[in-house]
């Protein structure tokens, strides 16, 4: 081992092979020897390589060197710090070295995986290591910040995923605010008739959960409400919730239903009935709604629009109608947030070649769900748009708006199973012939393929091909008066025209139209498809880049019911873990003002979006509140006097890193 260079801390460099992930493109042994030789003057006293640095043996190697060689700094050249920084800082800490004196160099994500020339890649790895060796010498030991966790939790979205999350947290004894923008919780699942592959009634399995959420004393149910602002950070979020005026006094209302019985105004229900049925201007979306209180739909209410009517008020036995009710704003403090905001359905009218909106007997999957539902507009009868005629032939088209670069590139994952369920329901209730038009049959979950087998056995006719068009233009006499589904049957390589009475479009899922704004509100980002982005797509699918904000259900991507429920429960478990720790550790990356250098120029004062910077007029200087500072470093970069320094990313550290990187040239 080489001798320590005077005035330089003792540094150890550890280069990982990552199996062959790194070593196939970076000459790891060469890097190891080079670091010892060329960076010896920079303080490197030991340089080692290892097959898997992140393994316990790899970590022990570092711990041993810290203890035996008295290392004062550690550099691990391996994968991205976002994967293993915690691992290696933990190893250092166990060996008695302040964790913030350990840095990682990403030579896998930034070198071996993205370059193709081994010589050049090796040179780049060396340059990055040199930069980090210089930087780490400037690192200072830091102590983690600890902030207490508020035990209250906010759950946004009252679909099955949000309900599950709220119940798990509440049942553990902690308070939950469950916010839902519709008048009732239940989400899309409340609209379905049957659920695949077991065919249990959706309402039968969902309503008990809804009732539980509505009656749990630990859950404050805020329906017909939306989150309008969020400030603070993990452990201490301050959330403002807008409670839209219901025009119904919840204290007095018994949910008896006389108001909507008497209301003279019928409105097409585009939300719950998917446009297939009607509701009144004062309504609850469905009979089992939780809470049971109705809302008055102001833009459609005769009294609000014309000034007369008030039928609901006249007949209400408890005087619960209150036309003067105003929107309320509620401020709540929570420690963690779970976003389970769900999905929108693809607009079938965009695929004009399928004729939705032009050809009456083309239906969307959600319209069909409502049609099948005994409480739906047809009382569970499967009929054509006229409400009478039973179809004799039905065509079901998969992948509408999904797996298509013209619309959404991704697979919506549930449509194959949904379509198979429809085939079964049509057969069972009408005996009609059913055609399924699919590109690929995707039934990859427990008991799903068995259901496909069952539907095959029931005599459904499968045609492998993406439907080209649905038309009413007959070419042959037997096509007259029918909808003709034109498709290449790709298994026989011939175009077919199949006349049917009814077409069902299995429409895909889309991110909520306002997902981006919601993301901004909570400080999380969306993927290029528009779904909320996970901290790690495989290993941390329910966390986000923002501490304390968790995501669950279809808000993160298309999912079936079991997937949504699992994520809701998982997010709740993560929140409970945080609550039980009572406080949360934060990265100690903060800015502070050297009061001797501060000239009081106030340039930095308006830069902080977290209001952490304030001017002390009596002292003529500026101070930074470390509890509010988030560590972005903008003020550090702006201070003309160099009076503000940022821990973890100080000027000295960055300058040293630049020097190191450019050293070889």
């Amino acid at each position: 081992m080489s001798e320590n260079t005077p005035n330089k801390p003792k540094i150890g460099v550890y280069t990982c092979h990552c199996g062959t992930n790194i070593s196939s493109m970076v000459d790891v042994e060469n890097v190891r020897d080079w670091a010892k030789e060329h960076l010896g003057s920079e303080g490197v006293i030991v340089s080692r390589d290892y097959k898997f640095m992140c393994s316990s043996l790899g970590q022990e190697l570092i711990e041993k060197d810290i203890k035996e060689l008295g290392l004062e700094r550690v550099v691990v050249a391996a994968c991205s710090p976002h994967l293993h920084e915690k691992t290696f800082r933990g190893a250092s800490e166990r060996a008695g070295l302040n964790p913030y004196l350990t840095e990682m160099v990403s030579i896998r994500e930034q070198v071996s995986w993205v370059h193709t020339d081994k010589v050049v890649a090796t040179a780049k790895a060396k340059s990055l290591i040199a930069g980090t060796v210089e930087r780490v010498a400037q690192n200072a030991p830091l102590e983690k910040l600890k902030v207490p966790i508020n035990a209250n939790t906010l759950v946004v979205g009252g679909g099955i995923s949000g309900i599950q999350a709220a119940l798990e947290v509440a049942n553990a004894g902690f308070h939950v605010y469950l916010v839902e923008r519709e008048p009732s919780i239940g989400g899309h699942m409340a609209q379905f008739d049957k659920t695949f592959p077991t065919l249990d009634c959706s309402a039968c399995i969902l309503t008990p959960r809804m009732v539980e959420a509505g009656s749990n004393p630990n859950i404050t149910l805020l329906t017909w409400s939306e989150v309008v602002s969020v400030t603070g950070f993990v452990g201490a979020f301050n959330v403002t919730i807008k409670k839209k005026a219901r025009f119904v006094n919840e204290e007095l209302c018994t949910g008896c239903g006389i108001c909507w019985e008497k209301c003279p105004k019928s409105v097409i229900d585009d939300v719950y009935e998917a446009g297939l049925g009607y509701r009144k201007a004062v309504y609850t979306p469905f009979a089992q709604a939780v809470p049971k209180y109705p809302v008055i739909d102001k833009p459609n209410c005769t009294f609000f629009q014309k000034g007369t009517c008030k039928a609901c008020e006249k007949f209400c036995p408890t005087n619960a109608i209150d036309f003067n009710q105003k929107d309320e704003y509620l401020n709540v403090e929570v420690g963690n947030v779970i976003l389970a905001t769900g999905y929108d359905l693809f607009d079938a009218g965009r695929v004009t070649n399928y004729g939705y909106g032009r050809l009456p007997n083309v239906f969307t999957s959600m319209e069909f769900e409502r049609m099948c539902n005994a409480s739906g507009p047809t009382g569970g009868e499967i009929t054509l748009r006229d409400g009478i005629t039973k179809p004799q032939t039905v065509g079901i088209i998969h992948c509408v708006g999904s797996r298509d670069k013209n619309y959404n590139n991704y697979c919506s994952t549930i449509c194959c199973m949904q379509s198979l369920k429809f085939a079964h329901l049509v057969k069972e209730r009408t005996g009609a012939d059913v055609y399924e038009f699919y590109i690929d049959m995707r039934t990859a979950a427990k008991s799903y393929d068995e259901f496909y087998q069952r539907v095959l056995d029931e005599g459904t006719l499968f045609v492998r091909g993406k439907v080209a068009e649905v038309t009413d233009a007959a070419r042959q006499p037997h096509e007259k008066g029918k909808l003709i589904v034109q498709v290449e049957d790709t298994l026989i390589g011939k175009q077919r025209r199949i006349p049917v009475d009814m077409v069902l479009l299995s429409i895909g899922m889309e991110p909520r139209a306002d997902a981006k704004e919601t993301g901004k509100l909570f400080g999380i980002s969306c993927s290029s498809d528009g779904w909320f982005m996970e901290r790690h797509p495989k290993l941390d699918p329910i966390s986000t880049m923002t501490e304390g904000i968790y995501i669950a259900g279809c808000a993160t991507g298309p999912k079936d019911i079991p997937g949504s429920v699992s994520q809701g429960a998982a997010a709740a478990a993560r929140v409970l873990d945080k609550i039980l720790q009572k406080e949360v550790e934060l990265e100690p990356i903060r800015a502070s003002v050297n009061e001797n250098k501060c000239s009081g120029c106030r340039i930095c004062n308006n830069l902080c979006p977290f209001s952490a910077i304030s001017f002390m007029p009596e002292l003529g200087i500026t101070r930074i509140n470390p509890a509010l500072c988030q560590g972005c470093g903008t003020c550090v970069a702006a201070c003309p006097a160099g009076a503000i320094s940022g821990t973890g990313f100080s000027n000295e550290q960055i300058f040293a890193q630049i020097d190191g990187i450019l050293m070889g040239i």
Partner: protein
Amino acid sequence: MSPTEVIEQKGAGLRKPEDLTLLHEVSVATAGISNLEMCIQCGSCGGSCPSAADMDHTPRMIFAMLRAGMKDEVLRSNTPWVCVSCYHCVVRCPQKVHIPDVMYALKGMAIDAKLYKDSNAPDFAQSFVDFVENYGRSFEFGLATRHYLKHYPLRLPGMTSMGFGMLTSNRMSITPKRIKKMDQLKAILDKAKTLELTNE
């Protein structure tokens, strides 16, 4: 070589890199970016095609055959020649494959390889090209007459009513027009023919 021979010779399935070479070759010969390698074999092209019934292979099958390296079979196929350039397939294709332009590319390759023999289509194209290269304009009467004389002589009596109609209704001139700067156009086309398009 029959398609089965091709497959037997190379072994079943996609063989690298020879088979991909054919896909690549067609891709390079296609105007714009073909996206040919992105085909997921969904059949929305074959389903959309108004003349699919007259094709010996649907466009989708042609793309599968290109992947399998079945060059002769593809260039002998009537598919590209029966394509009516309606562009329904391209706007419906979920992978944005430039299907009609791939068909154009295959026609050019078939002419070069002298493989397509079953119809007069290449001749029609050739007559058209001749007119354009000599006059700078196309010429419906000359084209139609020349074409029908050569390929449907028996139909000509039936068609004369139409041809006569076109003439008497003043819609067909008996003589072609020539552009003024034919030499300029010739120079451009002569130069163009020496230029090979390679992949970027």
